[in-house]
C-alpha cells in the first residue's frame, strides 16, 4: 500500500477500502525494510503513528467529517519542533532536545489527523546540500545508494522517493527542499516567504527560511501545502491573506501561459543532459499551448555571494543561543563561563555549521558590515526587482533545479565552494522570497533530473497547475525505485 500517493490513499480511506492502521503498518513495514539502506529517519515514532492511525479509524467509523490528510503518514524534517518528540536538527548540539511545544505546521497537521511516522535526517542545522553534514548518519539517494539525496532536506526527499511515506515536510533556505527533490526524483515546493508559519522551525536564516511539502505527485504537494499555509499570530512575518484549496483548484490548462527561460540559468556549469531535459519539458509545455520566451536576470551571477552573506549573518545570530546554558549539549570539563561557551560550541557543532557561524560573524563585524552585509542586502533588492520585471512578461520561469544530477557521497564534502555551487539555481528564489517548485523532468540513467518552476509571490496555484499539466502529459511522477 506504501506505493500509493497520498491522494490515492485518501480516497481509499474515504471509501473504507483500507484503514489508516493498514496504511500506517504498510508504511512502517517499508521503513523497516529499506531504511537501514536509505537512512532517511532519525526517529521513527512507530507507537505514536499506530495510535494516531487507530484514532483516525475510530473517528471515521463514528462518522466524523475528516480532512483529506486524515490517516496519511507524513515524515517531518528534524528541524521542525514536535512536542514530546526529539528535534535534533541533525546536530550533536540538540541530540537530546525534546521540545515542550510543537511548530504551528505540526499543530495544523494534528488538526488534520495526520499520522506522524517520524523525524527525518538533514544537513546539520539545514546547512549543506547533501545531508552529509548530519551528525547522526548519511542518507543515501534511493535511486543510487552511492549518491547523496541532496540537502539539506535529504531525509525528507529520500523517504518520499523510497516509498517510506507518501508525503514529508522539509525546509528551504537556499534550495533545501528543491535540490533533494530534484536529486531524488520527487516533487518539492518552496512556498512564498511568509505563506507558511515559521513558528517552531529551528531558524537557520530567518529572512529566507520556509517550510514546504515534498511528495510523489503535484496533487499531493498541493494538498499538504493547503494544510500548512496561512497567517499565524505567532509568526509576525506571516502574511495576512486567504488561500485557496490548492489541490481542489488544480487545472491542467496551459493555453496562452507565457513560460520564461532565463538565459543565466542555462550557462556554464549546467550539464548538457540537464539542459536537454529542461528544454524537452519546455517543448512539452509549448505543445500544450504555452508560449516560450527567453528572459534575462542579469544579477543571477552574484546571487550566491549575497545568499551566503545574508544566510550566514542571520545564522551566526540564530545559532548563538546554543551555548550550553539552557538546553542541548554542554561540554563536560570547562573552567568558567567563556570556557563553557567555547568548549560547548566547539564540540557541539560540526565543521560546516562552524564555518557559517564564523563567516556570518565576520560579515556583521564592525568595519565590515557595510562592505558585506549591507551590499548583499542591496543586491537582494536588485535581484528581487529583476524577478519582478520578468514576471511582468511571464507567468512562470523554467530553470534547472540543479546544474547536475546527484553526486557521489564524499565527492564534494572536502570542497565547500563546489558544494555551495550546487545551490546556484535555487538561492535567488529565497533571496527574492518567491515560490518555486521542483518536478522530475527526466533521468540520466538511474539519476533523476529536476526542473524548477519559479513564480511571482503567492502564485503557487499557477506553478502547481503548470506542473500538473506536465505531470499529466508524462503519465505521473510516482515512481519508487528499487532499493539496492
Amino acid at each position, binding site marked *: 500500500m506504501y506505493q500509493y500517493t497520498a491522494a490515492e490513499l485518501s480516497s481509499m480511506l474515504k471509501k473504507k477500502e483500507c484503514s489508516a492502521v493498514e496504511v500506517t503498518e504498510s508504511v512502517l513495514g517499508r521503513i523497516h525494510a529499506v531504511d537501514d539502506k536509505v537512512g532517511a529517519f532519525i526517529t521513527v515514532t512507530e507507537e505514536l503513528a499506530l495510535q494516531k492511525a487507530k484514532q483516525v479509524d475510530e473517528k471515521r467509523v463514528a462518522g466524523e467529517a475528516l480532512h483529506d490528510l486524515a490517516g496519511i503518514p507524513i515524515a517531518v524534517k528534524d528541524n521542525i519542533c514536535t512536542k514530546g518528540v526529539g528535534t535534533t536538527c541533525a546536530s550533536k548540539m540538540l541530540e537530546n532536545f525534546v521540545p*515542550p511545544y510543537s511548530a504551528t505546521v505540526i499543530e495544523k497537521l494534528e488538526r488534520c489527523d495526520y499520522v506522524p511516522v517520524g523525524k527525518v535526517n538533514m544537513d546539520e542545522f539545514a546547512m549543506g546540500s547533501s545531508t552529509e553534514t548530519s551528525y547522526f548518519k548519511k542518507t543515501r539517494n534511493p535511486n543510487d545508494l552511492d549518491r547523496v539525496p541532496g540537502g539539506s532536506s535529504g531525509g525528507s526527499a529520500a523517504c518520499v522517493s523510497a516509498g517510506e511515506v507518501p508525503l514529508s515536510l522539509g525546509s528551504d533556505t537556499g534550495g533545501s527542499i528543491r535540490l533533494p527533490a530534484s536529486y531524488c526524483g520527487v516533487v518539492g515546493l518552496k512556498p512564498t516567504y511568509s505563506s507558511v508559519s515559521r*513558528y517552531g522551525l529551528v531558524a537557520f536564516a530567518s529572512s529566507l527560511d520556509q517550510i514546504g511539502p515534498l511528495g510523489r505527485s503535484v496533487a499531493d504537494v498541493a494538498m499538504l501545502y493547503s494544510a500548512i499555509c496561512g497567517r499565524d499570530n*505567532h*509568526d509576525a*512575518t506571516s502574511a495576512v491573506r486567504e488561500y485557496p484549496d490548492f489541490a481542489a483548484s488544480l487545472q491542467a490548462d496551459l493555453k496562452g501561459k507565457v513560460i520564461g527561460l532565463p538565459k543565466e540559468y542555462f550557462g556554464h556549469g549546467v550539464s548538457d543532459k540537464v539542459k536537454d531535459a529542461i528544454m524537452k519539458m519546455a517543448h512539452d509545455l509549448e505543445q500544450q499551448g504555452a508560449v516560450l520566451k527567453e528572459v534575462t536576470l542579469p544579477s543571477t551571477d552574484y546571487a550566491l555571494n549575497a545568499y551566503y552573506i545574508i544566510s550566514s*549573518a*542571520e545564522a551566526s545570530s540564530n545559532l548563538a*543561543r546554543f551555548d550550553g546554558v*539552557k538546553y542541548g549539549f554542554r561540554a563536560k570539563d570547562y573552567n568558567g563561563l567563556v570556557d563553557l561557551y567555547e568548549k560547548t560550541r566547539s564540540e557541539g557543532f560540526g565543521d560546516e555549521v562552524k564555518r557559517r557561524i564564523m563567516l556570518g560573524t565576520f560579515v556583521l563585524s564592525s568595519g565590515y558590515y557595510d562592505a558585506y552585509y549591507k551590499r548583499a542586502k542591496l543586491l537582494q533588492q536588485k535581484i528581487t526587482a529583476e524577478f519582478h520585471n520578468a514576471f511582468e512578461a511571464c507567468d512562470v520561469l523554467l530553470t534547472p533545479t540543479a546544474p547536475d544530477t546527484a553526486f557521489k557521497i564524499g565527492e564534494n564534502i572536502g570542497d565547500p565552494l563546489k558544494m555551495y555551487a550546487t545551490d546556484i539555481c535555487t538561492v535567488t528564489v529565497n533571496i527574492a522570497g518567491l515560490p518555486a517548485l521542483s518536478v522530475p523532468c527526466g533521468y540520466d540513467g538511474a539519476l533523476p533530473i529536476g526542473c524548477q518552476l519559479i513564480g511571482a509571490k503567492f502564485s503557487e496555484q499557477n506553478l502547481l497547475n503548470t506542473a500538473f499539466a506536465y505531470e499529466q502529459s508524462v503519465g505521473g511522477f510516482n515512481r519508487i525505485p528499487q532499493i539496492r
Partner: protein
Amino acid sequence: MEYEIVVGLEVHAELNTKSKIYCECHNAFGLEVNTQCCPICMGMPGTLPTLNEQVVEKAIKMGHALHCDINRICKQDRKNYFYPDLPKAYQISQFDVPLCEHGYVEVMVEGKVKKFGVTRIHIEEDAGKLLHGGESFEGSLVDFNRCGVPLIEIVSEPDFRSSADAKAYLEALRSILLYLDISDGKMQEGSIRCDVNVSVRPKGSDTFGTRVEMKNVNTFSGAVRAIDYEAARQIEVLENGGTIEQETRRWDDAKGVNILLRSKEDAHDYRYFPEPDLPTIVVPQEKVDELKASITELPNLKVIRYVKEWGISQTDAETIIDNMEKSEWLEAMMKTGNCTAKAAANWILGDISKYMNETGKSLVETKLTPEKMAELISYIEKGKISNAAAKQVFEILLTEDRNPMDVVKEKGLIQISDEGALEKVVADVLANNEKSVADYKNGKTNALGYLTGQCMKATKGQGNPQKLKELLLAALEA
C-alpha cells in the same frame, strides 16, 4: 586649574505593560523564579517574537513628553552578545532608527529652569537575572522571569554640568514616567536603572574630555555619588599629568568607589543587524497624534509653574506634584479663587498629607472636596474662624458630606472679630482682674497671657485671639 563636569545619562525604564514585549507572559516583579516565562522568552529553538503594541504606544507617549520627533516607521535590531541571562544570545533592541529622537526636557534645578537634550528613546527587551550561589546552592542559576520585560532606553545629550543637574533630570524623568502611567518607577525593584557617562574639561573649554561609562548605578542618590566620585578621580588623574582612558567602570555604591570593568580594547562588537523575525514598525499618524493629545501638563512643567506663578517653594511644589492627587487638589482649590496658594499648599503638606499617611487612604475615599477645603481655608484667611477651629471642621468634613459653614455654625466656631463686642469683653476682664492689671503695669508682662486667656474664656473660645491681644495692649498702655 578649574574643571567643568560633563555628564550624559542612559536611563532604562521598565514599562508597566500587562504582558512582556514579545510573548504573552505576565510582566510582573517578585514572583517565584522561572514561573513567568515561556519557550519564547526563554529563547527556545524555533520560537519567534511578536511585538506587544502597548510597548510602542507607551514609548511614543514618553517621546511626546520629551518633545521628541517620532519615527512612526522604524525597525528593530539584534544586539548580539553572550551572557547566561540572555537566552537568545541577542537582545532585540533598536539601533540606527529609534522610535523617538531629538527631544529635550525642561527641569527646575535649584530654582533655575534648565533645558536638557534628549538624544533618543528606543524600545528593547530586558534580560533575565543571575542568582549566584553561595551556601544554598553551587554555581549560578538563571531566573528568566524578567526576560522580555519591555524597556525604554532614554539617552540624554551630554548636557549636565553637575551631579545636581543629573539628579534633577532623573527625578523629572521618573515623575513623568509615573504621571503618564508608563512605568511603576520603583527604584528598589530595578524599574529604573541608569548608566552614567562622565568626563571633565578645563572650565571654558568647548571640546569634550574623554568619557568614562559607569554601570550599576541603581539609585538617584547613588548617581550623585558616582558622578562626584568619578569626576574627582578624573581631575586627580589629570592634575597628576595622566590621561583619561575611554573605558567602562562599575560603580560600587556600598564602598563608594568604582572599578574598571573593561577597557576600550575589550569593548563588545554587538554586530547589530535588522531583526529578521519582526516586520517594520509602522504607527499610523493618527495614532501618533492621538497619543500626543492624551498628554496633559507634565510634572516638570508644573513645578516651574507653581514656583513662578504661585510663589510656592520648589521643594513644596515637587512634594505636592509627586502625588498626582495632591497636585490635582491644589489645582482645584486654586481654581475656586477662594484661597491663596501658600495656605492651600500648607494644608496639603500638613493636615491632608498627615491624614493620607496615617490612614493610607486617598482623598477620593473621603467626603471632603477641594472646593470645600478651599472654602474652609478662606474662613481662616478672612479671620472668620481660628486655625484650631478649622482643624476640627476638617476632621468632620472628611467623614460627613456637609457644608463647611454649617459645621462651623453648629459647632459654634465663628470667631468674634467685631471690635465693639471685643472691647466690651476686654473692659469687663480688666475690671474684674485688677491684680493682674497692676502686675502688668509693674513690669510683669506675662500677666498679658493670663488676661488674654480670661478674654478667650469670656468669649467661650470664639474671640479672635489676635484682636483681643491688640485691644488688651491698647487698654493697658493707655
